[in-house]
């Protein structure tokens, strides 16, 4: 058998060391004290143990270990312990055995195996309540070890309480920041949810967020979602390449902000114009595009109208002079347009018609002339009203021979038309010039002009003069 003194010494040392380790293992009060009481109960082969915080003459249960402590209800025993708290604080250590009259009240609950209770107050801060199924605890050295470790334990408790305060402060601060963040988020959510333009987030070409307005623009109900739909699928078929190219500009890194107008398709299949402004960003660490989208159908239609008005003659519907000059200028540098024939048309006797029949009849004659000319010209030819009674036609890829046949076609049409006319007979003087290249363009125009005047001068009703006939 061992030397009992040495054995006791090593046991106490071991208990002391194990408890010291338990004390230092956590800054969370309940966790730290749970490790402490667990070690104590196990090491001392106690039936159970609980630990309480002493605060202003009352006690607060923290944790326990051993039999039944997971179901432990501190309320049942708190009043009894508080009744004898002064005595415990005064004596520091109180050992109550099962023969004592007050045993039952401080042994709540009881299963009948309890023999002795050790109550120990440590530095007016902690109350340790250990229940044993045996007697003679005072002789086992537990008390001495706990006494010697008391200051260390109390320091650890204070450190935990301070840490708790720091945590509470941090928690408050975190809460404050979370609230602020939540408010900001709510604000932004409100902004996007209530925005009068569509707002979207695209990632991997899929719509990851669409606000209600965007859904509404595309004809979806509130409950329906555009989530995970391919953005390009929103475009009309003929506009899909355009939209794909727009997306590609972001993904290839060519662009950080890009604007697009394209025709899109609503859920019901109707087509409309939308304008989209995207900006390159990151979402969850991956490239993404955020942007706005608006239905600009009315604006685009108005724009088209204005464009039409800017390019067309209000009376006849053919191009106006300004637009003709623009076309001529663009054809000038296009080598594929040559040979380019220019035909000038002048309505004969328009002044007399206006004077005799009135301007309404004059306008009618002009409209009829425009109609006939447009009818007889080809799709690739461009007809415009060049002056009050003058029209000009640009015939790309047309040599003199072809131009002559077209003029003859016009002549025939006017002849046939005049047979049907009851009121005023239409007479048009025409002249053309053909340019083989851009350097001959001015010459061709002058030639057309002079040929038209020669025609006008010579003809009684119709005369045609072309460059080939000179």
């Amino acid at each position: 058998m061992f030397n009992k003194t040495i054995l006791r010494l090593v046991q106490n040392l071991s208990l002391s060391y194990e408890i010291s380790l338990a004390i230092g293992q956590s800054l969370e009060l309940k966790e730290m004290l749970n490790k402490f009481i667990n070690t104590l109960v196990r090491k001392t082969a106690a039936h159970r143990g609980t630990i309480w915080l002493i605060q202003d003459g009352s006690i607060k249960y923290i944790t326990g270990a051993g039999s039944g402590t997971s179901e432990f209800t501190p309320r049942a025993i708190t009043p009894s312990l508080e009744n004898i708290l002064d005595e415990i604080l005064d004596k520091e250590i109180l050992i109550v055995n099962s023969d004592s009259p007050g045993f039952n009240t401080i042994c709540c609950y009881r299963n009948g195996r309890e023999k002795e209770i050790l109550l120990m107050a440590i530095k007016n801060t902690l109350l340790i309540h250990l229940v044993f199924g045996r007697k003679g605890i005072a002789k086992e050295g537990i008390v001495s070890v706990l006494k010697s470790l008391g200051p260390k334990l109390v320091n650890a408790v204070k450190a935990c309480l301070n840490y708790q305060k720091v945590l509470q402060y941090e928690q408050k601060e975190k809460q404050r920041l979370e609230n602020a963040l939540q408010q900001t988020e709510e604000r932004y959510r409100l902004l996007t949810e209530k925005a009068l333009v569509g707002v979207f987030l695209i990632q991997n070409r899929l719509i990851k967020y669409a606000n209600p307005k965007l859904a509404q623009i595309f004809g979806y109900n509130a409950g329906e979602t555009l989530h995970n739909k391919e953005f390009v699928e929103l475009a009309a078929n003929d506009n899909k390449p355009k939209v794909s190219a727009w997306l590609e500009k972001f993904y290839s890194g060519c662009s950080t902000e890009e604007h697009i107008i394209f025709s899109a398709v609503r859920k019901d299949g109707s087509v409309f114009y939308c304008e989209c402004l995207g900006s390159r960003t990151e979402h969850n660490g991956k490239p993404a595009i955020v942007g706005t989208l608006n239905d600009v159908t009315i604006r685009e239609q108005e724009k088209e109208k204005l464009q039409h008005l800017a390019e067309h003659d209000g009376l006849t519907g053919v191009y106006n002079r300004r637009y003709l000059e623009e076309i001529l200028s663009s054809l000038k540098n296009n080598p594929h347009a040559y040979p380019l024939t220019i035909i000038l048309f002048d309505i004969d006797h328009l002044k007399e018609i206006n004077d005799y029949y009135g301007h309404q009849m004059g306008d009618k004659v002009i409209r009829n002339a425009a109609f006939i000319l447009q009818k007889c010209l080809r799709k690739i030819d461009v007809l415009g009203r060049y002056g009050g009674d003058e029209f000009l036609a640009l015939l790309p890829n047309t040599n003199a021979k072809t131009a002559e046949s077209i003029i003859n076609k016009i002549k025939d049409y006017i002849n046939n038309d005049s047979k049907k006319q009851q009121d005023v007979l239409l007479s048009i003087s025409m002249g053309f010039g053909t340019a083989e290249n851009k350097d001959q363009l001015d010459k061709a125009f002058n030639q057309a002009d002079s040929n038209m005047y020669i025609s006008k001068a010579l003809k009684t009703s119709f005369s045609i003069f072309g460059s080939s006939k000179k």
Partner: protein
Amino acid sequence: MYHKIKFYSKSSFLGLNDFLSDLITEDTTGIILFIGEKTLFNSQQFFSYIKKYNVPICGGIFPGLLYNNRIYTSGILGISFKVPFRYEAVHNIPSLTKLPMSVFNKNQVQTCLVLHDGLTCGIDDFLSKIFSSTTYNTKFIGGGAGRLSLKRKPSLFTKDSFWNDGALIICIDTPVGIGVGHGWEYLHGPLVANKVDGFYLQEINWEPAWNYYREIVESEINCQLTADNFFDIAKKFPLGMIRTDGTLIVRDTVGIHNGSLRLIGEVPQNSVLAVLHGSSDNLIAAAGDAVVQAYNDYEKDTANCNPSGMLVIDCISRSLYLQENTNDEFYRIKICNKHNLPTAGFFSLGEVASLGDRYLELFNKTIVVGVG
């Protein structure tokens, strides 16, 4: 305690239906089956048989069985009960944070049989959770299932599951008297287990555990202790954890790993240890003492009641130490079995016992006797 005890020794399961039918009567509330590790065990066939019955059936595979004072390494020991009986299967003990249910169901439970995987980690913590879950005067008895090869395989079963790393908590509402004995004595110490990692004792007295232990044992055996003869020699020199009340919790040393000693059961860091030794006579006497203790405990708690059976849970390493003397141990048990109660039991990998008066501990190299 028992309603019926039967033993099935056939090598095939063909007679299992008759065996189970023999165990079951109208008032049977549950059955525990203890299966010897050398039984030709076809789990699929076995479960198809036990699933046919409506009564709760659970159990485990153990290194050996004890039936009517005879030892078996194959066969099935079946015990049926007619008192309130319920069990709960616990899975994955190493990562268990909370018991999966209120085991004790707010009702008085007189006896709790805990069968656990003898090779899983976290048994101490698991036992602590069980102990802290009852406020009743519950007595605990049990042991570790598994195989002597120490290979980790499923060792516990219910009708629905066959698993390892878990436990069965079986609540049986019948009184029991419990006796615990080991017979091991101090050889060397006190020592401090100053570095521990789970089952591995890494340092004793701030020196590599294997070196320290070897020196002490070699001084006793007058020959070299090596990895080859470790198992045969170390079984005679277990370690003991000394508690503050002077009691000993025995820990088996079963292997060496990188200078550490592999134990069955955990040792908390900084525990006070002793190297123990024993003699066949002492171990056999301790088994008899455990029977006497169990009778005394039963009679103290249950006046005017007669026990109907005895459950013996004997650590397999005791039989490895006692070898042919193991029969003497059971003869001793028979002698002390004053009411000649039918005896059944199993060899275990770790034992569990508590009279409900102290922290629930896992024992090694110990014999636990239940009389009820």
